[in-house]
């Protein structure tokens, strides 16, 4: 029998309890039939009350709901980073570093465009290792070069220092953004593979699943866009399929043949079944939502197989993210007067 330390059991159990408290499918179905004031009241009376009260003076209406949801997510993620012990903490922090990339890029882009700091701050979600104080410090800086200097101790720095001059010159941060995400995956794979941390194998399994799904989504997007350029650079290495595999899959012109090839390389039964369903499917947005659902199902399965590992934490992080995503989608969708059926298509339940 494998011995598991008490803090691991404690945190994994807490994650399961927190996950059980997330909104169930029936609540979303009920909310689809609610009006905006009803949805607003529902959110105000739930766990998001504190953020709604705090931000009530700065925002109003639908923006208040969206910002409150994002801040609650950030706060929850920060809390989990605090309570996670040992390797779980390290993996959780590594996993949440993607929010740092998003925040830093938003600040750099906003500053490059001459957007006021207050406006940039409204769209930051401090859910990663950079908390709001640090982000505020970046916002107070006059130039992007100074912001990059302030990030010298951060893992992002080498890629930022290398990629920023060309981004500044061309005015496009896309290459830098892709490089930062690739570096992010490269580092978490390296962390997971280094035998020094217990539980690395199960973390690696999840990361590889995420990379595969991310690359599959990119592949479908590129095909929808009919991009002719060399797209190797847009895939993340480290998954079960190599970048070359994805590049050659992208070269297949016939959609059904391409899906058959992708299916032959898929590791999980759920993914194979989904790919079979996607034959003849045209909407790329629908494909993306369905791939996300498969990813979550797969994560759930992994977390049941490894109940005292990083998986219960990651499943909770992802499910919490999608709860916020779904509530925001419901509120925004209702505000835009989208039909309930259309909103339901985009919910990740």
């Amino acid at each position: 029998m494998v011995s598991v330390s008490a803090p691991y059991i404690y945190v994994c159990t807490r994650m399961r309890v927190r996950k059980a408290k997330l909104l169930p499918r029936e609540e979303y179905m009920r909310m689809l039939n609610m009006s905006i004031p009803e949805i607003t009241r529902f959110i105000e009376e739930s766990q998001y009350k504190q953020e709604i009260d705090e931000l009530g003076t700065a925002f109003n209406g639908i923006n208040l709901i969206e910002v409150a949801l994002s801040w609650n997510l950030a706060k929850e993620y920060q809390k989990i980073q605090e309570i996670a012990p040992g390797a779980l903490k390290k993996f959780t922090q590594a996993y949440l570093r993607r929010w740092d990339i998003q925040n830093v890029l938003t600040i750099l882009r906003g500053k490059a465009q001459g957007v006021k700091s207050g406006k940039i701050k409204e769209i930051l979600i401090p859910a990663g290792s950079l908390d709001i104080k640090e982000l505020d410090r970046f916002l107070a800086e006059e130039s992007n070069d100074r912001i990059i200097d302030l990030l010298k101790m951060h893992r992002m720095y080498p890629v930022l220092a290398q990629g920023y001059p060309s981004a500044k010159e061309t005015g496009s941060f896309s290459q830098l953004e892709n490089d930062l995400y690739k570096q992010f995956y490269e580092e978490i794979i390296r962390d997971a593979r280094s035998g020094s941390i217990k539980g690395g194998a199960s973390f690696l399994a999840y990361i590889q699943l995420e990379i595969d799904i991310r690359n599959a989504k990119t592949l479908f997007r590129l095909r929808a866009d009919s991009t002719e350029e060399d797209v190797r650079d847009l895939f993340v290495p480290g998954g079960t399929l190599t970048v070359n595999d994805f590049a050659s899959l992208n070269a297949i012109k016939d959609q059904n043949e391409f899906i058959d090839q992708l299916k032959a390389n898929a590791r999980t039964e759920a993914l194979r079944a989904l790919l079979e369903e996607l034959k003849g499917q045209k909407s790329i947005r629908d494909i993306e939502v369905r791939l996300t659902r498969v990813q979550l199902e797969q994560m759930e399965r992994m977390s049941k197989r490894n109940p005292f590992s990083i998986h219960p934490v990651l499943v909770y992080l992802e499910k919490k993210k999608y709860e916020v995503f779904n509530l925001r989608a419901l509120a925004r969708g209702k505000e835009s007067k989208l039909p309930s059926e259309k909103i339901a298509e985009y919910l990740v339940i």
Partner: protein
Amino acid sequence: MALRDIKPTRSELINLKRKIQLSERGYKILKMKRDGLIMEFFKILGNAKDARGELLRRYERSVEMMALANTVEGAIGVKSAAFSVKEVPTITLKSKNIMGVVVPQIDSSKVKKSLVDRGYGVLGTSPVIDDTASSFEELVESIIESAEIETTMKRLLDEIEKTKRRVNALEFKVIPELTEARDFIKMRLDEMEREELFRMKRIKARSTS
């Protein structure tokens, strides 16, 4: 022009005849120009209707896509992706001549971009952003196309109106007045000739008696 102001002289008559000839020629040419402009206008009207229809269709799609992007990515995600776009589409304004009317010809820089060239990273965004960006790029293209066609139409309309006024002025004012003046001078000259003849006869009769 009041008839009393006209000098009933031969040179004035010749002058008036010349003016009438010129006015009639101008009238014919302007009438042809007006008809030609109207034909051009109707030709462009078809294109303008199509362009306006397409513009409205694309606008509705863009609004719908923005609503969808706000639903899926939230205003935060949409704003964050919007920060990526730095390049503003530029237009080069040239002009072309349609029957003497100078109309604009707009050449724009490529508005529609591929996924790779849009400025946001593929790994940090979702397809709904692609679709929204693409629908707005198409909308901008439609706006540029409509701007060209509708400005052409507006200029043609102004010119038609101007030409119509000139044709009417020539047909109902200038030519009738000149003709009246010519007839008046002719009548006065004839009268003067008759008076002269009568006077000569009276002198001849007096001198013979």
